[in-house]
């Protein structure tokens, strides 16, 4: 009997001890990052967020609390991303979630966010995301976007083309684009703008997803006597397109060629991207267009030994700072920043009147949680590959357009 009593006392002491240890556990702020972790987009997200977290922690964290990074691999699949989002919310109780690369994945999981009620700072371009927020604010208000809405791309492509026209007198253009939903929306807008700006579209070539050989495309370009190609290509085949363009076609290419914003694109194409004119949505390229970007690129390289491997890195870095701003504002006003509704309220205060000084420019959200793209804020940048370097040519320039 005595032994039993001693055992019960010891067990009770152990339980109390553990409980005390639990209460003494340091309070932290958890930043969740979700994305395709095997791909560079996921790795970029993690690196960008990590850099921001380390910088903030080095200065004492937020409200005296350290920031902790928690990641989940969405594997570029809607269902796996849904599991990851729920795990970040229910298992980890994160304060904010960053990432969710690709429009299809984000749109498919807007209802998951409505269920878990966590702020999600997404990395995708489809107008559908913010359209849905406008239609059902109550459910989708937790979603904010730091990437440019794709409806801003066409005017920027025209800006690049106009710049080329000043040099070469471009009149006839051929559109070469992915056979994909994201391009269909931009394509009609682009055609209208081309006509309004005095260009003649002599052909509009949609390329199937696995197309490798582009001889037929370039022969058509030549036969139609086009002065320029306007390209909209988001997939890996861009390397094949650009390599063959350089060898077979003498007309300039201006466009949104997403793989070409990667600093490694020069090596991937063996330098065949020289003189390619590219739209970098929301300035997500390693070009020092301002002092903040210059410092960011320097710190990034020091920390990871390379420049941002994907455009997702810029967004996740700034997302952490946007969260910090909202959290601190809420705290200062005596509200609970761990409440997602409060956090939404203060993220909405990062607007045109009260922008955040980001690395790509001034960060502000619209009423429907899109990032503001335009003069004085983040801009869609036109740059040109020149001898292995990216040179910004419009609307911010670090050099001259050459041909």
């Amino acid at each position, binding site marked *: 009997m005595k032994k039993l009593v001693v055992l019960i006392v010891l067990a009770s002491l152990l339980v109390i001890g553990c409980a005390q240890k639990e209460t003494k556990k340091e309070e932290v702020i958890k930043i969740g990052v979700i994305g395709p972790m095997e791909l560079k987009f996921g790795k970029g997200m993690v690196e960008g967020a990590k850099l921001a977290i380390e910088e903030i922690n080095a200065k004492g964290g937020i409200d005296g609390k350290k920031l902790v990074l928690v990641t989940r691999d969405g594997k570029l699949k809607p269902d796996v991303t849904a599991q990851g989002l729920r795990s970040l919310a229910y298992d980890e109780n994160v304060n904010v979630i960053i990432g969710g690369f690709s429009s299809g994945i984000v749109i498919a999981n807007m209802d998951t966010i409505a269920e878990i009620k966590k702020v999600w700072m997404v990395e995708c371009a489809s107008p559908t995301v913010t359209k849905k927020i406008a239609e059902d604010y109550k459910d989708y208000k937790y979603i904010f976007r730091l990437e440019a809405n794709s409806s801003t791309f066409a005017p920027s492509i025209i800006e690049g083309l106009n710049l080329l026209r000043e040099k070469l007198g471009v009149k006839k253009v051929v559109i070469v684009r992915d056979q994909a939903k994201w391009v269909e929306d931009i394509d009609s807008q682009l055609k209208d703008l081309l006509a309004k700006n005095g260009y003649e579209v002599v052909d509009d070539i949609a390329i199937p997803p696995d197309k490798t050989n582009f001889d037929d495309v370039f022969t058509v370009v030549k*036969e139609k006597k086009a002065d320029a190609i306007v390209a909209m290509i988001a997939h890996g085949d861009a390397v094949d397109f650009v390599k063959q363009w350089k*060898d077979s076609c003498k007309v300039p290419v201006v466009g949104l060629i997403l*793989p070409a914003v990667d600093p490694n694109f020069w090596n991937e194409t063996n330098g065949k991207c020289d003189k390619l004119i590219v739209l970098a949505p929301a300035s997500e390229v390693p070009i020092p267009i301002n002092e903040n970007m210059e410092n960011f690129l320097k710190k990034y390289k020091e920390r990871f030994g390379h420049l941002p491997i994907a455009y997702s890195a810029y967004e996740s870095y700034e997302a952490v700072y946007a969260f910090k701003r909202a959290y601190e504002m809420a705290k200062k006003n005596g509200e609970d920043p761990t409440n997602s509704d409060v956090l939404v309220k203060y993220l909405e205060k990062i607007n045109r009147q009260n922008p955040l000084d980001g690395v790509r420019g001034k960060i502000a959200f619209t009423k429907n949680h899109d990032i503001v793209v335009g003069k004085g804020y983040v801009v869609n940048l036109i740059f040109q590959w020149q001898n292995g370097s990216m040179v910004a040519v419009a609307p911010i320039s670090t050099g001259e357009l050459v041909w």
Partner: protein
Amino acid sequence: MLPVLIIGAIWGGILTLVASGFTLTFGVGRIFNFAHGTFFAISAYVSYILYPHLGYLSVVVGILSSAILGLMLYFMVKPIRENEIMVILLTLSLALLIEQVILLTFGEDPVSIPPIFKGSLNFFGVEVTSTKLLSFIVAIILIVLLEFTISRTRIGKEISAVSQDYESAMIVGINVERVFMLTMLISSILAGIGGVLYAQIYSVNPESILEILIVAFAIVVLGGLGSVKGSIVSAFLISYIQTAVSYFSDARWSELASLLVIIAVLIVRPKGLFGVE
């Protein structure tokens, strides 16, 4: 019409390089080598890694690495060769394994090798790069060599005999194992050559392993399983369909058109264009 003939011929030659090894392995050993795309990718990646150190010698090393992988695969498949399902599972697993290794080592971005010959030539208004022309010539030489080897040489006749009936071939004293090994070796070298040329014109990435397999599979099925001649004809047929549709109509329909033709041919001739019982 001339541009279609020129572009179709060049693309057809490249497709032939991709598919001929695959059909040879099936024709002789009845082996569905789902790791065929691996030979292709390995030569390209090895060449890509070594190019800064060895220059164009890396291309030879790349092809050699495919040959070594081919030999390794022969020994892996040997004990289970009679079980077709096991062979498919093994070769497909190997392909997926190597795809993952490449993905983890090099990432998902495409890689390419600088072309041996720079510049391009103009054929009746079509710009054909020197490397594409080289690939076409290499493809033609390899096709002729393969045909010559199979029809005129002793080892070729042994290969034909084994492909027709390997038990009878064994009875008449043909070293069947040697034929199997040689076939796998030739197949891997053909794919290896295809890989290093392809990576100079286009690019390869981890997904190329399965993409190339699908292309090769479609060509071989259309041509008739095991028929080298059938593969060559179907490679050019697919190429001309894709090019003509893209040129005269719209590029977006090119792949759909070639798939419809494959299905139509298989309905009429389930064994493919040159398939035999």
